[in-house]
């Protein structure tokens, strides 16, 4: 076709020559006239080159991409043009731009297989879209279909969250035989303490036929009652005795502490599993298969 175009130039059939040169470039954007071709034909050929935006693709064969790998496609242009290379959806919506600048003869574009965020693989049919803008203001768009499939490793199940202790859900349903904790200034606490002290003192009367009991029980009963009174009237923020450490941290029942430990252990295990799952998702392998180029579509003519 180049030789045919050169002959047509020599015969002053310039339109036919231009058509021959265009067809030659459409088949091979790297087509060039033989050095022995005359100057007039060579000049005519290069004028056609600068007015056309044919692009050729040299993709690799079916390729498997591991994380960090790049899918490389070499582009060949018919001329020196402003070029935009992007990954688009099948509908033409741009997902990720790979290159913006001049293409002189050839260009290597690389893509890591990820979407615009760079975090997730882009699956399904996509297009490698190349737009050339020759000097005449036209816009030549050529697309290379790419089919991308992923091999995703199985993710791990999250560990089961430990059930909250019964006392944390509702004290009324607790099965713990230990007593319910109460707060300061609780009249029920005072009454319970006084009744307990009274029970200590009155037990012999209630149990023994002669009602006799050790006088030492009065000490214990009095201690119980006194403790209840002190616990009731002492302000919660009262000063501790001089020289004693101040314990401001509220006491927590062991049941809560143990549950907290289990909850924290569960949280650590969950974070670990999530990190591993994230790593596995990132470790997805992509199979990329290139199709037959489509185009060019010429706008602005």
């Amino acid at each position: 076709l180049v030789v045919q175009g050169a002959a047509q130039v020599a015969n002053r059939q310039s339109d036919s020559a231009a058509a021959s040169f265009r067809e030659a470039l459409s088949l091979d954007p790297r087509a060039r006239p033989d050095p022995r071709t005359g100057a007039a034909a060579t000049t005519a050929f290069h004028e056609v080159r600068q007015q056309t935006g044919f692009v050729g693709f040299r993709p690799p064969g079916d390729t498997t991409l591991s994380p960090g790998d790049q899918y490389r496609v070499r582009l060949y242009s018919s001329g020196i043009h402003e070029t935009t290379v992007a990954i688009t959806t099948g509908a033409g919506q741009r997902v990720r731009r790979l290159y913006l600048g001049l293409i002189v003869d050839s260009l290597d574009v690389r893509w890591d297989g990820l979407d615009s965020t760079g975090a997730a693989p882009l699956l399904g049919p996509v297009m490698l879209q190349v737009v050339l803008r020759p000097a005449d203001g036209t816009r030549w768009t050529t697309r290379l279909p790419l089919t991308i499939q992923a091999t995703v490793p199985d993710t791990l199940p999250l560990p089961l969250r430990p059930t909250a202790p019964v006392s944390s859900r509702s004290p009324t349903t607790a099965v713990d035989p230990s007593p319910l904790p109460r707060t300061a200034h609780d009249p029920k606490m005072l009454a319970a303490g006084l009744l307990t002290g009274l029970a200590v003192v009155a037990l012999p009367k209630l149990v023994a036929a002669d009602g006799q009991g050790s006088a030492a029980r009065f000490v214990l009963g009095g201690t119980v009652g006194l403790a209840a009174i002190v616990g009731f009237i002492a302000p919660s923020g009262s000063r501790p005795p001089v020289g004693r450490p101040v314990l401001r941290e509220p006491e927590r029942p062991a049941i809560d502490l143990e549950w907290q430990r289990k909850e924290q252990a569960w949280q650590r295990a969950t974070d670990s599993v999530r990190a591993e799952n994230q790593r596995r998702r990132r470790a997805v392998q992509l199979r990329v298969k290139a199709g037959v180029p489509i185009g060019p579509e010429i706008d602005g003519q």
Partner: protein
Amino acid sequence: MTGHRCLALWLTLAGTGPVAAQSPLRLEAGATAGIVRLRTIDGPIATRRTGVSLGGQGAVWWNRLGLEGGYLEGRLGSDGSRLERVEGYAMLGVSPVRGLVINVGPLVRALVTGAATTRWVLWNVKTRYEVGIVGRFLSGFGEAWGAVKGSSNVPETFNSARGGMAGLALAVGNGQAIVRLSYGIDESRLGAGRRRDTIETFAIGTTIRIR
């Protein structure tokens, strides 16, 4: 405090262990020691003995149901009136509401003298209630029990047995261990009340939550 009356002096084995209270399974173990006064009134004859006893107890709880057991032994009196007291019990328990426990089970008691051994088997129903009186760390508790059936190898016919206990419970180590200071008394009656055996106990003990 007079010499014939009991003084409480308990040495407690204490320790701490992990607690997993949200598990339906609870294991508890403990030790008690103390001084006991035994009064035996048989017609016109009254005998008083005092001494020390040591023992241990344990419990397994699964949700609201539990099994409790214990053993203690001690020596009462001195010289010619010396008497060995050995006692054990095993009781099934249920905790219908928190702090309240109802137990049913046998208590076996042996009073051994040089000449003879008196054995008792009492089938008891016991109710125990524990309620906080100062914050989370100090509670009061009381219990009462009665024998629904009893037998003894003494000549007199068994009439009744009942008892009670009350005291303080101090939670230490974030509730991993509970120290109890208590006063208890029980009395068994035989022969239409002609013979009465009354045992008073000042006790201090520790219960450790193993699981």
